[in-house]
């Protein structure tokens, strides 16, 4: 045994506290399930983040997010997102459950019930966890591309033709390095990135999450880096009935929306097994 100075070739692969001070949203994006289930813990965490542990605007925008992890111990999996082109990158089709279109505001009679990104991640990752597929939400791919605006609530077709392209930047929701597999959920917020509402003063807000999902899918096929799947907010619609309480109607539609999103995930699980991306 001897005293021997160590010379390190690389720094440890987990960050120092400085990273979290500079990116306080990382805390609100990595909340244990147990805390989310516990309203007191969740409220306390949110309070601390709002009071200074986090960036206020980010904390309000990005509600606590679920990350699902498996219990397996994986050996030395690739540490960074793979950047090489994969000729065999497989992009799942859009699994169609729910219209994925709707509108709120103005004269809309049947507005959709939205599923937030936080809630969607919970549904998606919980279902995938049951299949032992775990995802990181920290090191996820950043997808950048330009697209023609897919909608504007004031523009007519001619306006759309001359409208500037939207610069889309999407940090995908989850990434599994082992399978080079990325997941994105198209919420109403993501859909808004495709819109150019410049000069539009209408209270009407239209959403086509399914169409936006198709556009993202096409771009992923073009880029060809990743195995990927895009889910979308089904945008299940409220249809009010005279003899039914609002809460009952809302709860029923919300339940339907969750089921539709879960059906998308179930189709994806079948697909991913069939394609051999994961072992059955």
């Amino acid at each position, binding site marked *: *045994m*001897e*005293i*021997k*100075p*160590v*010379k*390190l070739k690389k720094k*440890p*692969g*987990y*960050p*120092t*506290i*400085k990273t*979290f001070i500079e990116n306080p949203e*990382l*805390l609100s994006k*990595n*909340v*244990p*399930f*147990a*805390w989310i289930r*516990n*309203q*007191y*813990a969740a409220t*306390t*965490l949110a309070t*601390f983040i709002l009071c200074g*542990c986090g960036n206020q605007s980010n904390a309000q925008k990005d509600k606590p997010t679920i*990350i699902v*992890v*498996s*219990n397996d*111990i*994986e050996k*030395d*999996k690739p*540490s960074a997102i793979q950047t090489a082109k994969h000729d065999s990158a497989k992009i799942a089709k859009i699994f169609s459950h729910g219209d994925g279109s709707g509108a709120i505001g103005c004269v809309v009679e049947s507005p959709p019930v939205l599923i937030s990104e936080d809630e969607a991640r919970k549904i998606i990752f919980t279902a995938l966890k049951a299949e032992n597929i*775990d*995802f*990181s*939400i*920290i*090191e996820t791919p950043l997808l950048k591309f330009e697209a023609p605006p897919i909608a504007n609530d004031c523009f007519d077709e001619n306006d759309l033709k001359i409208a500037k392209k939207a610069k889309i930047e999407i940090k995908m929701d989850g990434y599994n*390095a082992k399978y080079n597999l990325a997941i994105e959920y198209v919420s109403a917020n993501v859909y808004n990135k495709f819109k150019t509402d410049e000069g539009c003063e209408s209270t009407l807000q239209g959403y086509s999450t399914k169409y936006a999902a198709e556009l993202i899918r096409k771009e992923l096929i073009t880029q060809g880096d990743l195995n990927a799947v895009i889910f979308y907010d089904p945008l299940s619609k409220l249809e009010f009935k005279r003899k039914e309480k609002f809460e009952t109607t809302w709860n029923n539609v919300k339940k339907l929306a969750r089921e539709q999103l879960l059906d998308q995930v179930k189709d994806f699980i079948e697909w991913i097994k069939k394609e051999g991306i994961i072992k059955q």
Partner: protein
Amino acid sequence: MTPETAFQSIDFIADKYPINTGIIFFGGEPLLKKNLIKETISYCESKEKNQEAYFHYKVTTNGILLDKSFLEYANSVNLQVAMSIDGVGKAHDRFRVFPDGKSTFEIVADKIDLLLKHQPYAKALMTVNPETVNHFSDSVEFLVGRGFKYIIVSLNYAGAWNDDHIKEIKKQYQKIAKLYEKWILQEKKFYFSPFEMKLASHISQDNMECYQCDFAQKQIAIAHDGTIYPCVQFVQDGISNRAYSIGSITTGIEMGMQKKLYDDSKEQTALCSECDYNTRCNNKCTCLNWQTTGTLNQISPVVCETERVLIPIVDAMGERLYKKGAAMFIQKHYNAVYPIISMIEDMH
């Protein structure tokens, strides 16, 4: 220690260190003197009533004399009880036996539930010897399985460690790293001191100094006769190590000696200075250096070897957990208010 010396010690502390000072009862076995503990705490409370000083209390016990009545008392005065238990029976009974050689494990293990019922966050103080290192992982699993949330480990560096033991400890740390990873992913809450300290030493970087004791400054020890030592490890029998005494409760701290010991402890050796693990290493534990090399600032080869084994294993584990986005890992190590939220969760 007589009650008079104990009270004089409290007077001394109240005078010199009146704000939220921790009083730790140690031995030998302190529960042999339950009444003295109670009298001392009662005396401390009288000081608090007069707003002369404020204290908190800890006691380290081998658990043999622990009972419901004492734990109820401990809770009533906010005395934190830590239990010395080395893990599974084969590890614990290797050294912790009665004078006639009979096992203490069964008796101590039977007290775990009682202790944790009264103090769910009680610490298990675990010593790992060369002779017991092959039970290290099993022992950690045993203690966590029995419900301990805090496991504080000390390697007995004064033991006869050899190269085979170093290979074994590497194997054991790797097994424990797998357990740690599994438990964190299951969102189990626990504290395993060797790993937590090394993770913190990277994550906190410059603030790591805060985790280290300032020799002869912060955690001074008072022997049975009132002699003051720079650290509990220097007390020994309270008589034979007076060369390191920094004063007494009657004459006060000898500032010159206190400063000399502190300065000596901070001198770095050339080999340590050029090591990339220097800021993360146990080489700054003065009592450890003294125990193993007889000097205050020289690291022993055993400590160096075990640190070089431990740090890369912990770093690899930290990297895996971070890349998996393990929420409990991230909150525990990067969220300054983690202890508060964790406690609130436990309360509801």
